[in-house]
């Protein structure tokens, strides 16, 4: 099954990249705030049970995909 893992910096963790992009958007006169930049990971995981597949993706997050000191993830089974 197709799985999408979205990895975001935790609230409160400085995101200089987001800040720079926000400033860039302000340069175009867009009204915008709290721009945060994360990472989107898509993959195929064998299985047919969405709950089981999601649990596998969670294990991947715990092992490698996410650094819990600074990041959090949300998992979507498509």
């Amino acid at each position: 099954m197709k799985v999408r893992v979205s990895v975001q910096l935790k609230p409160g963790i400085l995101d200089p990249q987001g800040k720079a992009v926000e400033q860039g958007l302000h340069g175009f006169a867009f009204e915008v705030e709290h721009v945060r930049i994360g990472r989107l990971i898509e993959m195929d995981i064998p299985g047919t049970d969405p709950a089981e597949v999601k649990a596998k993706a969670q294990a991947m997050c715990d092992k490698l995909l996410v650094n819990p000191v600074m990041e959090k993830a949300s998992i979507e089974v498509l």
Partner: protein
Amino acid sequence: MRVAVPVFPGSNCDHDALHACGTVMGWDTIPVWHRDTRLPENTDLVFIPGGFSYGDYLRCGAIAALAPIMADVKRHADQGGLVMGVCNGFQILCEAQLLPGALLRNESLRFIHAEVYLRVERADLPFTRAMKAGEVFRVPMAHAEGNFTLEPADLADLEARGGVALRYCSARGEIGADHVPNGAMNGIAGIVNLKGNVLGMMPHPERAVDPKLGPTGGMGMFRSLEAAFSKV
């Protein structure tokens, strides 16, 4: 004294480490390929060099932390062997969970290459024992992700247990936000684990030991290691 220097694809300070440990200090220094599964017999110190291991993919140090050689580095550390990680080596040790915390992008967003002053916070470690607590030394830093970060409660724990080995400071040893080049919490430049045998630091002492190449502010750390081993 035998030193192993793990080399990952993208390591670029491995030769600085080999030069400092091998040529300058005269230690038996052996490069070890990341795919190897065993450190050389009787390794005393594992020196994890700086660079951009695996292109900094995913997160700095995240992929290197999973390299085959790292399992033996962990075994070495668990048995009390010394491990020192500099720059990307520090990031790898954090990702391998041999040290707490994470190194985020510098607050300024920029790669910073500069000479910085460090204050010795712990002078009782094998990495610092030839120096005095409060002593200031000057070494280069060269990184884009050195902004040390930890959850507030964990940071308080780290400070309380004396886990901070080195802090950024002024030439006179004053600490404070003005003297922190990268935004690191509490001006932390280097930390040690609970047992005091694994140290990670962002600046590069190994680039400041050879008088033929320039200043030698990093020598105190190498003299410390030598003293630690001559007593073994």
